[in-house]
């Protein structure tokens, strides 16, 4: 815990944003989360630059290997060390305060070190030449060695990094959540805003933990088997089953798809928890907790097997029955989303809201999430999938869901920021962040989808043909706006004022949730 606090303090620029308030005695729920959030922002800064580099290398007609290097590093850094780590940092702090249990022990620092060392190892491997995209594209990592594209050493380092990240996401984080929700002893002094599992704002956190643990287990098994072979511990005959591309592809998407869904369940749950705190008439309740919980249950049940939509275009190798099932389940998740739209709109309509930057970030993130959901269900229809799979539409969907989820988490972070640091951010600057982010995200997202509609392939270092470059310029422009929004946020967090000296401005200056 003291290590976490001193690491934050010793980090230039980023450390100042998340310097933990040690006057409240809440370090046990603040210290490690603050360090994770800070680390996630460092990864974000790096991957933003890599993201801008992608259209830039195409516009400037630079070497294609630069594009594939930036592509692999950008996707990997955004998905795991940035968004997942941000979510774990904010999520653990939130749960700690809601159930009155400390965010300490072996698993918490374990998560931090596994995630960040894993991220660094994977980055080193990419710099050594391993360009497999964040989707791994197995068996490409192995074929790349046979065709002389990268070395065995880079693969071993890269897979070691991926394994550390997977352990942190699939095991350490979910087990910590389950431990806090069901086992650890409650401590009165840490209980800021009591919530039970009946509360939709807490239910989703538990659901997501089980989803990650259960849906991730097969991938972890397969990845471990391959890694033990790469380390020369097991002979190939023992792991041949795991090295089958079909096995790997399926366990990968069972996990990767449900990872995204778990992140969605968690953030929708956090939205359900945060919105009522900003209701204008002082009511601290959703329009209906039952409809809110129903939406989470529908999302949970339908999302588990909708991953088949990743495989429609291998027809007929994917049996039609499984394709139909994936198609129908994908639209089932949208029924859950429709109920969520209802609950959030009805809550706002009935009670009015105080439009603080934290809440506005959450709500605009929700807008992005629903806009993306529409693109997701369209490519999850079997017929459309044959025109859109493998195009920029898919890249746009992946990017948009992550951008939406991260904005909602940043909103939740802004809400909890005073408790963690004892400081508040500037409201006007906070609104600028929300505005720029929304414009950048909608613009970039739409540019990606239009590019996909025009037939532009994703993960493809040759944009200058068929008139596709216009989308490249749009992606660059909106990408820069998105980056600017973070510059505004970073400056705001750096200049945040102490709660006592700031003018009280509603919930964002309240110590408890």
């Amino acid at each position, binding site marked *: 815990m003291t290590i976490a606090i001193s690491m934050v303090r010793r980090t230039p620029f980023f450390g100042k944003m998340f310097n933990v308030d040690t006057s409240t005695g809440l370090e046990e729920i603040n210290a490690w989360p603050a360090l994770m959030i800070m680390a996630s922002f460092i990864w974000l800064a790096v991957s933003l630059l890599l993201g801008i580099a992608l259209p830039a290398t195409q516009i400037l007609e630079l070497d294609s290997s630069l594009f594939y290097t930036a592509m692999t590093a950008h996707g990997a850094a955004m998905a795991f060390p940035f968004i997942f780590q941000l979510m774990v940092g904010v999520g653990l702090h939130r749960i700690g305060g809601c159930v009155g249990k400390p965010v300490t022990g072996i698993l918490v620092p374990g998560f931090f070190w596994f995630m960040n060392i894993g991220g660094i190892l994977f980055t080193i491997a990419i710099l050594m030449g391993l360009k497999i995209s964040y989707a791994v594209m197995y068996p490409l990592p192995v074929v790349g060695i046979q065709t002389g*594209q990268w070395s065995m050493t880079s693969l071993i380092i890269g897979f070691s990094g991926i394994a550390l990240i997977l352990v942190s996401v699939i095991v350490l984080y979910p087990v910590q959540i389950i431990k806090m929700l069901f086992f650890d002893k409650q401590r009165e002094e840490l209980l800021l805003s009591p919530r039970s599992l009946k509360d939709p704002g807490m239910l989703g956190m538990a659901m997501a933990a089980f989803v990650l643990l259960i849906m991730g287990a097969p991938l972890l098994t397969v990845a471990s088997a391959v890694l033990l072979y790469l380390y020369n511990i097991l002979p190939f005959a023992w792991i041949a089953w795991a090295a089958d591309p079909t096995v790997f592809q399926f366990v990968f998407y069972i996990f990767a798809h449900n990872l995204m869904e778990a992140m969605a369940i968690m953030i929708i749950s956090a939205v359900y928890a945060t919105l009522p705190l900003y209701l204008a008439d002082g009511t601290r309740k959703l329009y209906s907790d039952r*409809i809110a919980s129903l939406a989470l249950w529908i999302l949970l049940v339908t999302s588990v097997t909708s991953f088949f939509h990743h495989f429609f275009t291998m027809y*007929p*190798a994917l049996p039609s029955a499984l394709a139909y099932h994936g198609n129908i389940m994908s639209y089932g998740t*949208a029924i859950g989303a429709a109920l969520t739209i209802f609950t959030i709109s009805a809550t706002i309509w009935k009670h009015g809201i105080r*439009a603080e930057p934290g809440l506005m970030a959450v709500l605009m993130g929700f807008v992005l999430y629903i806009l993306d959901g529409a693109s997701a269900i369209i490519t999850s229809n079997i017929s459309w999938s044959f025109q859109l799979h493998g195009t920029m539409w898919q890249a746009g969907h992946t990017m948009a869901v992550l951008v939406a989820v991260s904005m909602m988490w940043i909103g939740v972070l802004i809400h909890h920021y005073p408790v963690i640091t004892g400081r508040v951010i500037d409201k006007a600057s906070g609104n600028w962040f929300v505005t720029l982010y929304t414009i950048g995200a909608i613009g970039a997202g739409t540019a990606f989808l239009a590019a996909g509609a025009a037939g532009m392939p994703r993960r493809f270092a040759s944009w200058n043909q068929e008139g596709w470059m216009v989308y490249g310029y749009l992606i660059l422009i909106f990408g820069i706006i998105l980056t600017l929004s973070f510059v505004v946020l970073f400056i705001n967090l750096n200049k945040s004022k102490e709660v006592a000296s700031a003018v009280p401005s509603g919930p964002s200056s309240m110590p408890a949730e």
Partner: protein
Amino acid sequence: MQEFIYQSGWGAFTVLLLMQIPFILFFLFVVFRQGSKKPSPSPTIDTSITRLKNIWMVAVVTIFVVINVVSIKYFPSVVEAQAEASGLEIHPVNVTAESWSYDISQTEFKVGQTVRFTAKSTDTVHGFGLYHPTGKILFTMMLIPGIGDASLVHTFKDSGTYKIRCLEYCGASHHEMSDELVVTASSN
């Protein structure tokens, strides 16, 4: 119209906007109207909200059912079954993908010819994306090595040079993995 909606990327994009634009207008209206007012509850009574909920959910489910039922007509399995049932001659074409090129058993076709592309990859995951001469994607197939052949029936409707591109990332020269098919007007 149906053909445009289900058989082109821009058709999908149109449906996307039809879902996105009403949502964004409605939601922003709710947020900014209720966020810019003096903090006080709206007088709306619960029964009217409940009625709106029922209308909204019925509308959503209906739209989803219609979209998906109509789309069945364009499923590759249905297109294939129709071609077989019509008694047309289906011309077999074999495709083998390997980093970073294709081996295609036949590359010249006539307008009106119905072809079954049977494709596989011998090394890593590749794609077989067929582009119409206008640049529109006709279909893409994902070729995972070892899982069995992907196969799709297609009838060429226009003459011209059709481009083939790999749409699954496959390494350093992925963007150079392409080929061409030439379709000429039928003689009769």
